[in-house]
């Protein structure tokens, strides 16, 4: 394919399914929250929790310190709940599901049906706000693993939800997290019982569909003592012109000796070549390594969204706990990304590692912003941070804003950052061997990202590699 063709290639997943939507009244109010709570058949404590968050929201101000600025969001002009209508009465089997919905999933390649079971992925697909079907239930049930929509967990496992929901991201945390706490619609809930290794990669595909609907996902993953889970999150969204707000909250809790691996491939609609449209991805992701020897590892490949603004963080409370953050952020055209992590060391002998690769092309802006904080009690802790940025052309920007705090004489923090462009010699070498400019750039960029890509589970790694190439189409030559 010639570069000119690639440049004009339309967003592959940009299609809208015509499904009648069932919407909450427009606007943010107590009434909307009560409506959501009622439709989800939530117990009273959950509604109270939401309302508490809503009251807190009234006094909070929208943050404005971040680099990517965006037009003011009119929160009263949004719908906070939208569900495909056929979901009002839960389907007993896949046959009862709206065939158009199934078609959409097939286009996206989500393995809902039996054949795809062989790929070994359990899927809890969220179409706008309600989970459609959950596969592999049986196998997971046998091990005592709970993997279900959070709305179901609120009804079936209230003690777990009550105990952990909001324990990592308090309801009064910051504007968007609090907004999510008040109006979250659905998301995933995972509980891994003690000494259990989750036999498969758990995966959710989110998809934003209804126009003017912000999605407010809430994910809660709890890994009990000695357990292990790997969770995948991938996103595609249909093409449209209005900017859409997405403010999800993801909370992870790892107890003694537990490990959680959370991988994301985010490929939402980034807006067109002129920066019109696109998703606002304002996500709060935070994990708490609560137990001794626990580990949380975040891996993210961020290629989509008009604005990506997220900092998956680790609170290393337990002694000997480990936090990891691997990130690739690619911005092209008018995309803006302000992403990074926070590693907060509280326990002794805690370790963290940050590898961030930022790639900027077109008129895009890419910022790494991170915090490494080693507290006075976190003896013998260690952090290593590496941020590399790659610039393509002089209309884009790459920025690094690390915050480093060390309050401890036995701990070590190391930070390195570089900014450069693609090496001419490498390009020349590739060209000489018959690769065209696009292919050469894609190869070099994939090499640049290798350290992060190899952290992804197999299924994702291949997809992510393709995504890295596609995202940079039309940025060179």
């Amino acid at each position, binding site marked *: 394919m010639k570069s000119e063709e690639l440049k004009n290639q339309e967003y592959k997943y940009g299609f809208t399914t015509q499904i009648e939507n069932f919407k909450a009244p427009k606007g943010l109010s107590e009434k909307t929250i009560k409506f959501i709570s009622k439709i989800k058949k939530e117990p009273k404590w959950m509604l109270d929790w939401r309302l508490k968050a809503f009251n807190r929201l009234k006094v909070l101000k929208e943050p404005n*310190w971040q680099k990517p600025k965006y037009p003011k969001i009119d929160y009263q002009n949004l719908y906070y709940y939208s569900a495909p209508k056929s979901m009002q009465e839960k389907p007993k089997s896949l046959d009862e599901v709206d065939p158009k919905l199934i078609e959409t999933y097939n286009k996206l390649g989500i393995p809902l049906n039996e054949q795809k079971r062989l790929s070994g992925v359990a899927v809890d697909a969220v179409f706008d706000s309600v989970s459609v079907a959950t596969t592999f239930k049986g196998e997971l049930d046998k091990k005592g693993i709970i993997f279900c929509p959070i709305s179901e967990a609120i009804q079936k496992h209230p003690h777990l939800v009550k105990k952990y929901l909001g324990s990592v991201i308090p309801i009064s945390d910051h504007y968007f997290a609090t907004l999510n706490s008040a109006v979250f619609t659905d998301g995933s809930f995972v509980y891994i019982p003690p000494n259990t290794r989750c036999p498969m990669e758990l995966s959710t595909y989110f998809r934003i569909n209804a126009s003017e609907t912000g999605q407010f996902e809430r994910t809660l993953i709890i890994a009990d003592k000695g357990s292990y889970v790997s969770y995948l999150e991938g996103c595609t969204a249909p093409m449209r012109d209005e900017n859409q707000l997405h403010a999800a909250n993801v909370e992870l809790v790892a107890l003694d000796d537990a490990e959680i691996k959370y991988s994301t491939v985010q490929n939402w609609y980034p807006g067109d070549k002129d920066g019109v449209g696109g998703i606002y991805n304002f996500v709060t992701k935070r994990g708490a390594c609560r137990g001794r020897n626990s580990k949380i590892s975040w891996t993210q490949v961020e290629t989509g969204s008009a604005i990506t603004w997220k900092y998956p963080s680790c609170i290393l409370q337990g002694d000997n706990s480990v936090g990891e953050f691997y990130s690739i952020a690619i911005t092209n055209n008018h995309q803006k990304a302000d992403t990074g992590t926070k590693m907060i060391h509280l326990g002794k002998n805690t370790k963290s590692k940050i590898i961030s690769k930022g790639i900027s092309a077109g008129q895009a802006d890419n910022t790494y912003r991170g915090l490494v904080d080693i507290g*006075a009690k976190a003896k013998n802790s260690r952090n290593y941070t590496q941020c590399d*940025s790659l*610039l*393509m*052309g*002089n*209309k*884009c*920007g*790459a*920025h*690094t*804003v*690390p*915050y*480093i*705090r*060390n*309050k*401890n*004489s*036995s*701990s*070590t*923090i*190391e*930070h*390195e*950052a*570089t*900014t*450069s*462009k693609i090496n001419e010699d490498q390009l020349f070498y590739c060209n000489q061997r018959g690769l065209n400019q696009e292919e050469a750039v894609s190869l070099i960029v994939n090499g640049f990202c290798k350290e992060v890509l190899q952290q992804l589970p197999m299924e994702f790694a291949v997809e992510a590699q393709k995504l890295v190439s596609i995202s940079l189409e039309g940025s060179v030559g």
Partner: protein
Amino acid sequence: MEQLFNIDFKRFNSLNEKEAADRKKNFELFLKEGLPNKKNENWKFSDLNYIITKNFKNITNNDDYKFQEKIDLIHDFDHNKVILVNGSLKSSDLHFEEKGKVKIETLKSLEGFHHQSKNNLDYLNKALSIGGFNLEVQQNYKCKKPIIIYNYFTANLNNKIINNSNKIKVRQNSELTLIEYNICEKSKFIKNTFEKINIDKGAVLKNIILQKTKCNGYFYKSISGTQDFNSSYQNFILSSGLKFNKIEIDMILEKEKSSCHILSGLNLSTEEHQEIKTQINHLAPNCKSYQKIKKVLESNSKGVYQGKIFVKDIAQKTDAYQLSKALILNDQAEFNAKPELEIYADDVKCSHGSSSGSIDEEAIHYLMTRGIELKAAKKLLINGFLNEIFENIPEDKIRIFLEKSIAVQIDEIR
């Protein structure tokens, strides 16, 4: 804030009406927001409002510049002498230089002191500035000897605030080494200085900031400057000993081939807090900037480094480097860093590194196995850690003098 400051505008002599009104206006502007606190991103790691209100109850402006004491001069190398008493220019002796080539006088007007970033201390300075010095080196003149500014602070400055402003201009192809040597008596006071630097085409300015002894001073200094084609600026910050010190440097590399070096070696002990904040703006191609900040933190001291490299889209072939290192010797000590890059040009070499931790145990073990006791081994390593930044000073005598000054400080480490 109004209760904290007890300012008497009558203390400024020969004040005309307009000037008096200007000062009052600036003071009111300052009072509106008061001293910067940690909510301000620039002051995130050094909450000045907290530090000042904790240590001062009633602050007044100074009008006493009497000076009887004899200043302990430096005898290690020949130099020109300029004496400032409580921030005000007292006398100068430039007898090593040709007549009329180097000029120094009291700064009369604050013209040109506009700041890019909003800083409330700027209003305070404009309201209360007592001037300072205006230094100029003529075209094609390379100063034969360095100039030492003996910055002397008298013993009766308790609870006083000194605001002064300086201007330094080195004209085309000239060269100057300027050493600011702070000598303080025992009083507890605040100093707020704004300095404007102009380095013309092909000119070289070397600036060394050195503190003689420990001091109860709370210092803030803002240095902002511009650099023309092929000019060079070097700043060595060796201001250990102050209770609080923040030096903010904002350099603009306006034309090609200019270079800017900022190097610092600080050794902080009990209750000391120092911050170095830099912003190097690369606005033209082929410029170079280099920053190396080293800190040794003892007891409950706090060291902060906030550095920013900004590269404009046309500033291709920029070579910018930033390194901050801290040795933390005590669990109560704290090191904070924010090494920032903001880059809009693609053909650049920009990198930064930061590390903090304790002294390498293996190195200590190595020295001890060779018969050096623990304390001496530590001092030896600290000495090596800090001395590295002097490599860039070619004049042997000055370098030896600086190494000696640092050695005295290290000797105080327990």
